[in-house]
Every structure is written in structure tokens, then in C-alpha cells.
């Protein structure tokens, strides 16, 4: 594990899984499988050539379901993490750069949000009626709304870490002399923030984003467990795992595959984040 390639192996695993998920249509075409094709005569089928991992409770091919579920889980993780990172970065930059009352307010806000028992609040958020918020009914009632909702909710839950991190980084960079030089040369706040501070805070941001991808996927599964996650017929690993709980004794595979996939993805996200931090941190670079 001393090579650079070895360090980024967790990233490789993730890319591989993402590629597999993206290749779902190819697999489906090759095996002649319709991922939503219900076949009641094939319920809880054993692994076979036509269904490499067997079938689920409606006779659908498990591999196809897992791949489709992976597409949803991974993209939810990615998009929500990006959103959280964007929010956190902006808040962190503003707080760290402008300091003073704004900083005190934003950080008090962030600390409060971190200190809150977030899951219960998210449960409330997940149950909020979008039409009461003035969201057009066409969006509020589309089949994919649970997907958007989860992305937004998990995004809202994850920005705090990034915000604290970026703020800390900004505070440090704000005192760095090249930033002072830029200000002294007449650069405006936006220029200083985005040309001089942001690129230098990028590595910890990337690390935080990587870590939050894993957290978001976990969050989605927990919300699914509480019945507030992504709704069928859209498959995600979280709701597959939740639904399979009920038949865990007679069809354990249905619960174990998505569970294990969540575990592998989240663990590798964490590992990747850790290794990125290690390899980007100058203090540990030599070791």
C-alpha cells in the first residue's frame, strides 16, 4: 500500500462501482432483462445463469435492481454532497473572510445546527408538504419528488462540517501574506475569496466532500428505514435494504447485498477521504 496507486485504491473501488451502476443498461441488454419487469412466477428465485444473483420479491433480476439502486444511491450521494459542499463553502468563506459579527452569527448558526438532534428534524422536513410551501404541484407530485427531497434534505444535513472546515481554512488563509498582498494590491473581496482563498482551501473541501458522499448514502438508508427515503418504484440501496428486512429470514440475500454495498461504498468514501487528507497534508507527506 505504499504506492500512490495503492493509496487511491478506494477511489478505484468507488469508480468501479459507479461504472457498474452506469453500465446497468448494458447488463440488462446483454441478459435481456427488464429491471422493472415483474415476473410473479420467478419470486425469490435462486441464482441461475439468467439471474446471476437470483430474483427479488417480484421476480425482478436482483443484479439489475442492485445496479439501478446503485445509480440512485450514488447519484443522490454525489449530488447532495456537492450541494452541501457548495453551501458549506460559501458560508465558510463568508464567515472566515469577513469575520466579525457575520462570522459570529454564521458560526453560531453552524454550531447550533451541528448541536441539534438533526435526524428528528429531518424527519419533519421529509414529511413537509411541498405544496404548502408553494412548490408547483407538477413538481411536488412527480414520481421523482422523493429523490429531489432526499437530495435536498441530506444536503441540508451535511453542510456544517464543510462550513466549519472552510471557515477555519479561510481564517488561516486570510492571515497568509499572499492574501494580504492581494488585498493590498487592490483586489476586491470576491476576487480574494475565489482566486486566492478558495483554490487554496480546495483540498480540505475535496476531502470533506468525499466524506460527505458516504454520509449522505448512510443518511438516505436511515431515512428509508424510517419510511421517509426514496419511494418505490425507484430503487435505492437504502429502500431495498429496508424492504428486505421483513423477509430477512427467508430471503437474507435481499437484505445482505444492498447492506454490504452500502457498507463498501461508505467505508471506501471514508477511506478515500482519509487518504486524500493524508496525501494532501504536507505534514504527513513525507511519511
Amino acid at each position, binding site marked *: 500500500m505504499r504506492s500512490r496507486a495503492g493509496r487511491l485504491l478506494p477511489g478505484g473501488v468507488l469508480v468501479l462501482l459507479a461504472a457498474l451502476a452506469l453500465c446497468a443498461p448494458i447488463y440488462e441488454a446483454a441478459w435481456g432483462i427488464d429491471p422493472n419487469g415483474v415476473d410473479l412466477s420467478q419470486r425469490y428465485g435462486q441464482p441461475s445463469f439468467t439471474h446471476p444473483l437470483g430474483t427479488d420479491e*417480484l421476480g425482478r433480476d436482483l443484479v439489475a435492481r442492485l445496479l439501478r439502486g446503485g445509480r440512485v444511491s450514488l447519484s443522490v450521494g454525489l449530488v447532495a454532497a456537492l450541494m452541501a459542499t457548495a453551501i458549506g463553502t460559501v458560508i465558510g468563506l463568508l464567515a472566515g473572510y469577513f469575520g466579525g459579527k457575520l462570522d459570529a452569527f454564521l458560526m453560531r448558526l453552524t454550531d447550533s445546527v451541528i448541536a441539534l438532534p438533526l435526524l428528528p428534524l429531518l424527519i419533519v422536513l421529509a414529511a413537509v408538504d411541498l405544496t404548502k410551501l408553494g412548490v408547483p404541484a407538477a413538481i411536488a407530485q*412527480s414520481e421523482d419528488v422523493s429523490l429531489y427531497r432526499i437530495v435536498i434534505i441530506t444536503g441540508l444535513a451535511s453542510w456544517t462540517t464543510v462550513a466549519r472546515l472552510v471557515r477555519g481554512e479561510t481564517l488561516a488563509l486570510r492571515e497568509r501574506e499572499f492574501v494580504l498582498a492581494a488585498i493590498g494590491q487592490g483586489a476586491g473581496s470576491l476576487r480574494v475569496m475565489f482566486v486566492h482563498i478558495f483554490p487554496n482551501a480546495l483540498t480540505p473541501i475535496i476531502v470533506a466532500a468525499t466524506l460527505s458522499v458516504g454520509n449522505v448514502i448512510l443518511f438516505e438508508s436511515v431515512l428509508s428505514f424510517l419510511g421517509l427515503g426514496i419511494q418505490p*418504484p425507484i430503487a435505492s440501496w437504502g429502500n431495498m435494504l429496508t424492504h428486505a428486512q421483513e423477509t430477512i429470514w427467508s430471503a437474507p440475500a435481499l437484505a445482505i447485498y444492498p447492506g454490504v454495498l452500502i457498507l*463498501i461504498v461508505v467505508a471506501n468514501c471514508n477511506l478515500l477521504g482519509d487518504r486524500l487528507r493524508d496525501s494532501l497534508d504536507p505534514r504527513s507527506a513525507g511519511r
Partner: protein
Amino acid sequence: MRRFPAPTAFVATGIILVVVGLLLGQTQPRLSKSQDQLVIGMSQFPATMNPNIEAMAAKSFVLDMAHRPFTAFDTKWQLICMLCVELPTVENGLAKLVDLPADQIQAPKTAGTGVCTPVHDKGITLTYTIQPQATWGDGTPVTTDDVLFTWQVGRDERSGVSDLEPYRRITKIEVKDRKTFTMHVNKLTFDYAGINDFLLLPAHIERANFAEPTEYKRRTAYDTDPTNPGLYFGPYRVTQVVPGSHIALEQNPTWWGAKPHFKRIVVRVIENTAALEANLLSGSVDYVAGELGFQFDEALAFQKRFGSRFDVIFKPGLVYEHIDLNLDNPILADKRVRQALLFGADREAISQQLFEGKQPVAHSFVSPLDWVATTDIPRYSHDPAKAAALLDAAGWKMGPDGIRMNAAGERLGFELMTTAGNRTRELVEQVLQSQWRRIGIDIIIKNEPARVFFGQTVRERKFSAMAMFAWISSPENVPRSTLHSSEIPTAANNFAGQNNTGFKNALADELIDCIEVEFNREKRRALWQRIQALYAEELPVVPLYYRADPFVFPKWLTGVEPTGHQYSTTLWIENWKVR
């Protein structure tokens, strides 16, 4: 650099977990049993123990061990006396028809078509006698005083009683003696003798709490002091309530009936059914009630896996699963399309393969177990060709992408809605989606939490095409609220009624009006046949199946007899025994 475990280690862990998990699935669970105590697992906690505030299955389940209604349907779906001594009938003279005063007569709501002549100008008096030994748990006898008090509470709209109707139709109660009373009812129906919902309150305890009617719902001793023995007169009385966890009951010494077997009954509430299952397997729970237990699919799987250790009884009953079609939807207004939906759906396959035949296909709203059920009605077996022909005839031609289109280029598609989180419905939904797509109908699934779905979408008819849910009814329940045209919920009538499909049929209206007041069983059966045939012809809904509740017993428990209707098995808890 540090050697953190390689990601491959996680993959390896995954593989090990898969293997261990599969092995775990092969092992047999342990079981233990206790003779004196029965722990019942259930998935919902009762909100209140007060018999009249808020009706919910969980409360009935628990309360029926400690409390009894005057009348109930038995397991053979016959009306019987539980707290009373004899059912009043016209024949035995305990029921008497009386002319209503003019101000209480309600005019017929529909113009007659001559099928029958509904009666509107008669009321009825009913005389009941309370079981002579009936005594509250603290030794106070159950008397007509309690009856009067209950009636007082029941019709007071400030009391918090959710369903005032059974109390309001009583215009007067005459007390004959401490145990006998006569009530005057201003609405005549053929099932006049049943006062299943008249649930007695202990006047000696509750009267003080009712001094301020608006505060009653907060002061009722059932909630402030739920272990007070004076609140119960059933075979058991509640001795411990831990909100959110469990309720314990112990034998009631003042119970007049057969002595129950178990000294102590614990009702354990575990919402997560997978956890409930684990508790059953580990012996923490002895029995999972069918009323509020496993999801159907889960129970089927459980039976396959642990059938040798547990008896799983699927009791089909009155719960009727169907899809309400919004008849205001221009596409669905065409009867051919509705029929095509039925021909296109392989309900037999759903029943056989998804439910292993345990939940029979429904052809009308009346359960085949009901004595008024008839087979002499149109039936729709799976016939995609016929469905296609009907759709073609209705102008829906197959489009290039496998979805039908009409001349105007509109796609044939519907939104199918149901309660989110109900596993069985979600499965059926996906099967139907797949089956209907095969005949060229595009189905978009859109589910909502139960409270939204029932509270708004269905009630206010906000579903654009299809809403899948169940009707829960009692034996020989007249479908007035669901089929009568006066019961279509609209903004104008404040969304009263449950005719959510918007079904308007003069004949149906009249048949309903007639059935209600037809005392002659055979004549009534004929009317029932006509309305069922009409229903199957007009198809305001897609009938799916009759639900069966899965009861999971340990082999040693006997005497639990599922009823199939909405009254709990615990009404006969004194019969429950260890084998």
C-alpha cells in the same frame, strides 16, 4: 505511509457477511414459553384507553380483553349479546316499531324508480338487559346508571367522543330498573339490534371527570389513571401502561364469565415488523396478533421458514382491497376503459403467486364469506386480448412506444396512488403497473403517507385517476356511504361521504335505500344480488382482493379464533389456552 486496511478488506468483509448472513438464515431459532404469561406482539400503540374517544384497532384489541360491548358479531358473523342478556327482535317483543314524530322524518333523497318503497317514517324502541353479574373491577355493579351516563357523554359534542352518530340516533332512554333499559331510535334499519359501538363508561368514576365536558378528554380516568380496576369489567383489567412500550393486563376477579387461562397478558408494541419478528423468534414475544401484526408478505415468508414451529393462519375477511377510479376523469368515464383495466389485470396471478391463494380475488364489494354474497355477477378473468379489443374500440390505438394513444395524440396513462410504506400495496401496485403496461397503459406510481392519502387525497377526491386502498366493514354492511350518489364528497358538502369515485346511479341509490329498511332476509338477499351485479357491470372501482390477516401463533397456543370482521379476537380471550 500508514497501511490502512485496503478497500479490498471491506469487500472481503462484505463477502464474509454475505456468507455468515446466509448461514444465519439456515439456523433454527430458539423458543421458550411461559404458562402463566402471554406476551402479544403488536405494531401500534393505543392512543387512549377510553372506549369512546378515538376509534383505533390497537385500542379495541387491548380494551376488548377488559371491556365488552353490548352486542358484537361472533366468529360466524352472527350478531350476539355480550354485555346484554338477549338481543331485541320484533319477534321477541323487545323491539317495537313506532311512528316518528313529524319533525324527525327525513324525506327520501332520491326519486323512486319503483324497485321498492323505502320506509322513512318509522322509528324503533329496543329493550336490553345488562348481564346480571356484570360488575366493574372495583366491585361496583354495572347498571343502567352507566348506560345513561355513557349516552350523556356520547352525544355531547364537547366530550371528544369521535363518533357521535350511534348515540345521536337514540332520542330517549327509559330506565326500567338497575339492569334493564329501553332506548328509542329515530332511524329504522334492518340491523337495529346491533349496538356494537355503545361502549359503557363507569359512571361512578367518570361522572366527576365529565363535570366539565370540554375537559373530559383530558380528565378521563382511562388516561389519567388507566390501572384503576373500576374502569374495567372484562376478564382482564389493565395493571400497567408504559406509553410507547407495553400494556400489561391481569385477571379481573369480578369477571362473570369463564375464567381465562393466562394470569397475565402483556401487549408489547414493536412498530418495526422486522424487530417484531426477531422478538417472536427469540421468544420475547409469544404471539403476533393478526389485527396489527406482520405485513402479509412477511408473514408468508415467515410461514415458509418457520412453519414447523409456528402456526400461521391467514384469515380472509371483510377487508376489501380495491382501486377507486375517479369517474370524473374523462378517460375513465368510458366504461370500456374500466372493463379493459380489469381484463388486463391478472388478479388471479396476484392472488395465487403473490399471496399464494391466501387472499382471494374480489369480484365485488361483498366478501364471499358474507351470507348476502352472490356469484351471479359479471366476472373479469385475465384476458389481454379482450382488453386490447375494448381499448381499440374506445379509440385507444397502440402507439410506437408500446403505450396507446387516441386520435388527438393523447397517451393512455394514469396515476396510481396508494399509502406509502404499505409493503403489500406497493408490491401489488408494481405488479399492476407492469401488467397494464403490457396492454399499452402507462401507469405512474405516486404514493403518499397514509394521513395525507386518506385525510386529503381520497377524501377530497384529489387523485386524478386511481387510488388503491381498502374498505373495512362489518357483516352485511350497506354501501350507502361509498356508492350512494348523495355521498359524493364535494367542496359544497364539505367533503362529506365516501363515494370517492363519483359514482352516480339512480338504481344503486334506490337499492341502497331499500336494503337498509328491508327486514325480510330473502327479499334483502335479492336486493343485495342486484346491487352487486350492478357494481360489477358499472365498475366504479377495480376490485382486487379480500385481505387476510396473518395470525402467527406458537404451536402451544390454542383457542384464538380469528373473526374475519373488524371485531378483535380478544373479545373471546377467555378461550385462549396453552395446549
